[in-house]
């Protein structure tokens, strides 16, 4: 796969990962897809995601190749232990080319057994907090380049977001759960008087909310000790039965100190009698949280949650447990009151005031309030007197949007005489909107016999908020996943924030090269956002500019006075903006990409839930940013390809495996004159129809090989242009790849007509040159050749005249005449044969290749050179090996080679003593499947400056030579697939030899 294609598929991987994060809030699923993505970067790699739990890294998700050994791998590391622990402790990426050589490696045997040599570890950091590490182990260091590490870092960034996100979700879910449980218990308190049922429910709630292993609710008995009344999760009888005495054990401590007691681990439990320890150890408990149930200043019970692991309980658990203990206390108190049949109103009010609910009695017809508990003041902020003063107080303080419905539903139920439950919003004194869960009972026997109603209103705002926020977030994640434009998503995020908190105005500014750019602010006036757009980031640049500069949240509670707003104070005040809190949003590299700001029209600081809103918005915008980055990268890559495909003078094509669906880049029209549609309409056959008839068979064969064997090809063929002439096309099938289960082939077509013409021209020139050198050689030999021809002519003429002499005699000797004529015929044949040879050598162009015996070629050349050899006084000895395989060759060209070499040999011996002028020609086998012809002379030898020089063009020792003979010989031999070489002999002279490959399936030559 080419580098670009690899990058492209990786971008796609990243995009899919972002999609899977946005589509699924399930952490395990997301982490699973992170490790899958990571391991898919390198084949056969082992990818592990370690999550930080306390001070330990615990393997949470892993993808690994088939195990080779039984050596166990680690599932847990302490911080600073092993490579993962080091990367986590140092909070920086670790790339270890050879883990076996690294002293930090702890599990060498495992790595060795599994053949894992190279390791990259990416720390996962979210908002400056280490949440885990992503580790990739591979077998080859070459697999982990900078691109892979960059991709791993990107995956790690996503994993960090997902882990953080899961934490936030868990938190939100937990709050919702708490609010529901407490509301249920409050409803029980209002609706039933069965103490045991209520206490059992409280114990159950504590068990579920605090997540302990063993939960118990103990009540004080007459002797002052506490015995477990409700117990969940205990396994041992010892634990179930043991009693707690004040001052002993953790429960005893809570009873004496009248406040919650906690032990985070086994060693922290206070001193206790051995039977206590036995009971605790019987359950294997490690940590515990105990809250006293205080009724009338007396500790009447203990609410325990215990866990079999250390550090199980947090402050949040304690808060919940305390509230549950309060409920338990209220229930116990109520039960006592009922038991004593003392229904004194004041005590009832006390009881009612301990409830975390508004309890009121009102006239069933007029809703005029006859009683409201003190708690109402804390919940809605209005003094109790206000409730009594306004006869329509309740109706007037229901949220205007819910008022009519709530009143109507209530009246309807009252008219039907049934108890009922309503949910609606009320307006608090400070402007907050409070969601109420209102349980209404109809009581008879009010003053004057009028029907009364008793209403218990529980604040369920947290629960409703959590649900609304969750739903809003899901909608926005869906928008992100659906590819909604950035501006639209930012707008939706702002609207979600604003819907969650009355009076908030949300704004998102994007940070681009040090400037703030308008992102979204659906409720801020256009004149304000326009003025802000383009403001610079700086140390004193309003809330947003400063937050982007400092990379931390900036809270300005009063724009009118805060020095950070010095420059744009008037603008903000003119638009009625009084407070602004802004948080920077950082990407994975720590750069500020945007700010999210919450404005108020009255001065003030953010409430906890508003800070949380900003955090949620930040989270969503980071996900959005990841999406946009990935999308942009993909678009850029697509754009690059589009530009390449359009402008590169090559036609690109992609086809499916059966070649039934073919994409061809549109620039084919510039090459062939045909449009894509015209060429692909007829499928493969339509395409083949445009190919030169001589090339069709070869092309079809390659296509079949591609289809059935996935064999890539690179071939040249002629293709018809629309105007009728043929183009030379180079067609390469470059790669096969699989997508969604379908195999595709990709390739390019290049118009090589001009190159091909040039090649043909070069070939023509070479043939011409070959011919010229041949003619030149023959020219050098002209004397000898003339002599060679003159001999048979002499013989003919002389014989003819001798014959005439014989005819003139009587009696004519017919035998003699017969001999004369025979000799004339022979000589004439000989002359004809010689002329034929000469003509062949003088003819231009190539002779078709044919199976030849090198021995025959040698003999033919020697016949031709006979006179030349005689004229030089050169003796030739031949040693022609019998049974040589045939070679496939051009007979004239090979004769030319031998001719040249022999003439050169004669030439080299020009100055030799006559008896030294000897040439030895030896033919032999050259290994398997080749023959060798060597010509050895005893001449002056090759030049001292280098044997190779003789093969250089224009190198010559002759006065009249072109200096091309050997160059041409070399190219002829090379064209036959052979090799021509030379060396000096040990004693004197030089040997030239060449090899020629035997023709395929060549049978040995006749001997």
């Amino acid at each position: 796969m080419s580098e670009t294609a690899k990058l492209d598929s990786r971008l796609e991987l990243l995009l899919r990962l972002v999609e899977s994060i946005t589509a699924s809030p399930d952490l395990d699923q997301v982490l699973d897809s992170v490790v899958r993505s990571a391991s898919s970067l390198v084949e056969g790699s082992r990818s592990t995601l370690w999550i930080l739990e306390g001070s330990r890294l615990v393997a949470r998700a892993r993808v690994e190749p088939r195990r080779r050994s039984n050596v166990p791998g680690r599932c847990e590391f302490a911080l600073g232990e092993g490579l993962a622990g080091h990367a986590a402790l140092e909070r920086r990426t670790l790339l270890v080319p050879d883990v076996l050589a690294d002293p930090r490696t702890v599990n060498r045997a495992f790595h060795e057994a599994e053949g894992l040599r190279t390791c990259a570890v990416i720390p996962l950091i979210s908002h400056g907090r280490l949440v885990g590490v992503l580790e990739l182990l591979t077998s080859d260091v070459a697999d982990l380049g900078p691109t892979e590490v960059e991709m791993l870092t990107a995956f790690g960034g996503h994993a960090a977001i997902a882990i953080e996100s899961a934490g936030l979700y868990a938190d939100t879910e937990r709050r919702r759960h708490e609010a529901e449980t407490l509301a249920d218990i409050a409803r029980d308190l209002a609706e039933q008087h069965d103490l045991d049922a209520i206490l059992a429910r409280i114990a159950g709630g504590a068990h579920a909310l605090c997540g302990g292993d063993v939960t118990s609710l103990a009540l004080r008995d007459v002797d002052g000790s506490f015995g477990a009344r409700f117990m969940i999760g205990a396994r041992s009888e010892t634990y179930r039965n043991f009693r707690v005495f004040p001052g002993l054990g953790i429960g005893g401590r809570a009873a004496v100190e009248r406040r919650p007691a906690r032990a985070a681990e086994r060693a922290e439990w206070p001193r206790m009698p051995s039977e206590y320890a036995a009971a605790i150890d019987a359950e294997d408990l490690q940590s515990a949280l105990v809250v006293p149930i205080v009724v009338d200043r007396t500790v009447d019970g203990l609410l325990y949650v215990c866990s079999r692991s250390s550090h199980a309980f947090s402050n949040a658990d304690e808060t919940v447990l305390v509230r549950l203990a309060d409920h338990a206390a209220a229930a116990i108190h109520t039960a006592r009151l009922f038991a004593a049949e003392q229904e004194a109103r004041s005590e009832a009010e006390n009881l009612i005031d301990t409830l975390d609910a508004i309890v009121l009695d009102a006239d069933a017809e007029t809703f005029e309030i006859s009683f409201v508990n003190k708690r109402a003041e804390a919940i809605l902020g209005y003094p109790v007197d206000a409730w009594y003063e306004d006869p329509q107080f309740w109706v007037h303080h229901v949220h205007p949007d819910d008022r009519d419905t709530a009143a109507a539903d209530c009246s309807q139920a009252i008219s039907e005489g049934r108890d009922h439950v309503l949910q609606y919003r009320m307006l608090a004194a400070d402007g907050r909107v409070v969601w109420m869960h209102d349980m209404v009972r109809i009581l008879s026997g009010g003053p004057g016999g009028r029907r009364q109603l008793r209403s218990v209103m529980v604040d369920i705002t947290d629960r409703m908020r959590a649900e609304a926020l969750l739903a809003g977030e899901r909608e926005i994640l869906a928008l992100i996943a659906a590819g909604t434009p950035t501006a639209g998503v930012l707008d939706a995020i702002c609207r979600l924030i604003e819907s969650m908190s009355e009076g908030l105005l949300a704004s998102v500014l994007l940070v681009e090269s040090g400037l703030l750019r308008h992102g979204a602010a659906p409720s801020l006036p256009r004149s304000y956002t326009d003025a802000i757009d383009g403001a610079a980031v700086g140390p004193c640049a309003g809330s947003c500019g400063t937050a982007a500069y400092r990379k931390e949240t900036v809270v300005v509670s009063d724009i009118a006075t805060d020095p950070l707003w010095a420059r744009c104070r008037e603008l903000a005040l003119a638009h009625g903006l009084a407070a602004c809190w802004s948080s920077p949003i950082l990407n994975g590299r720590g750069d500020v990409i945007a700010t999210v700001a919450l404005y108020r029209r009255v001065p003030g600081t953010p409430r906890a839930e508003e800070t949380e809103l900003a955090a949620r918005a930040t989270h969503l915008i980071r996900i959005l940013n990841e999406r946009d980055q990935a999308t942009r990268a993909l678009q850029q890559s697509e754009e690059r390809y589009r530009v390449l495909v359009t402008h590169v003078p090559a036609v690109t094509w992609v086809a499916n495996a059966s070649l039934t669906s073919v994409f061809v880049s549109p620039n084919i029209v510039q090459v062939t004159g045909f449009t894509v549609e015209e060429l692909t309409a007829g499928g493969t056959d339509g395409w083949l129809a445009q190919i030169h008839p001589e090339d069709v068979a070869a092309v079809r064969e390659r296509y079949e090989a591609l289809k059935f064997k996935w064999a890539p090809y690179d071939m040249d063929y002629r293709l018809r242009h629309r105007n009728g002439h043929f183009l030379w096309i180079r067609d390469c099938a470059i790669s096969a790849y699989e997508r969604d289960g379908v195999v595709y082939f990709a390739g390019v077509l290049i118009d090589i007509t001009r190159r091909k013409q040039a090649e043909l021209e070069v070939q023509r020139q070479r043939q011409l040159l070959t011919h010229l050198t041949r003619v030149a050689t023959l020219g050098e030999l002209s004397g000898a050749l003339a002599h060679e021809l003159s001999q048979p002519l002499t013989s003919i003429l002389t014989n003819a005249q001798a014959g005439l002499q014989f005819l003139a005699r009587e009696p004519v000797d017919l035998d003699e005449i017969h001999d004369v004529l025979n000799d004339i015929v022979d000589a004439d044949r000989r002359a004809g044969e010689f002329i034929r040879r000469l003509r062949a050598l003088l003819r231009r162009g190539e002779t078709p290749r044919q199976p030849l015996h090198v021995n025959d070629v040698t003999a033919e050349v020697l016949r031709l050179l006979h006179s030349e050899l005689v004229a030089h006084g050169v003796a030739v000895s031949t040693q022609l090996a019998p049974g040589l395989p045939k070679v496939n060759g051009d007979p004239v060209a090979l004769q030319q080679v031998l001719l040249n070499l022999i003439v050169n040999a004669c030439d080299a011996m020009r100055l030799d003593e006559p008896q030294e002028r000897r040439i030895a020609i030896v033919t032999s086998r050259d290994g398997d499947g080749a023959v060798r012809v060597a010509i050895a002379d005893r001449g002056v030898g090759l030049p001292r400056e280098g044997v190779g020089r003789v093969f250089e063009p224009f190198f010559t020792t002759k006065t009249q030579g072109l200096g091309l003979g050997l160059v041409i010989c070399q190219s002829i031999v090379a064209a036959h697939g052979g090799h021509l070489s030379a060396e000096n002999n040990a004693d004197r002279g030089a040997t030239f030899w060449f090899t020629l490959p035997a023709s395929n399936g060549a049978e040995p030559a006749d001997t």
Partner: protein
Amino acid sequence: MIDPSGTTSSPTVFVIDDDLAVRIALERLFRGAGWTVRTFASAEEFLQQDLEVARGCLVADVHLGRMSGLELHATLGNRDGAMPVILTSGVDDVNMEQQALRLGAIAFFRKPFEAGALLDSVRRSLAAR
């Protein structure tokens, strides 16, 4: 015209040519003219023979193996110099022709030659002895 039969021992024409067909043809031509003919494939072969050359004539090709016709001519001239030499050549080479004539060759014939002219030349050289 001299009738060869009228002589006690007919004069001998020595032919040296490396080409068998040429040798056969010349042998036939000279024999037909009534002379005794001895043929040789090379100058060396000719020199090895202890020949009665008193009444003879040599017809040799210039292009022979090791020793060329010219060299042979020179060698013979150095010995007793009496035998007339006629040279033939398959190559047009004016230099060689002039050199041959300068060395004292009777005639120089370029192949293929008119047999009549050669016979005349041989006849003249024999008569001159």
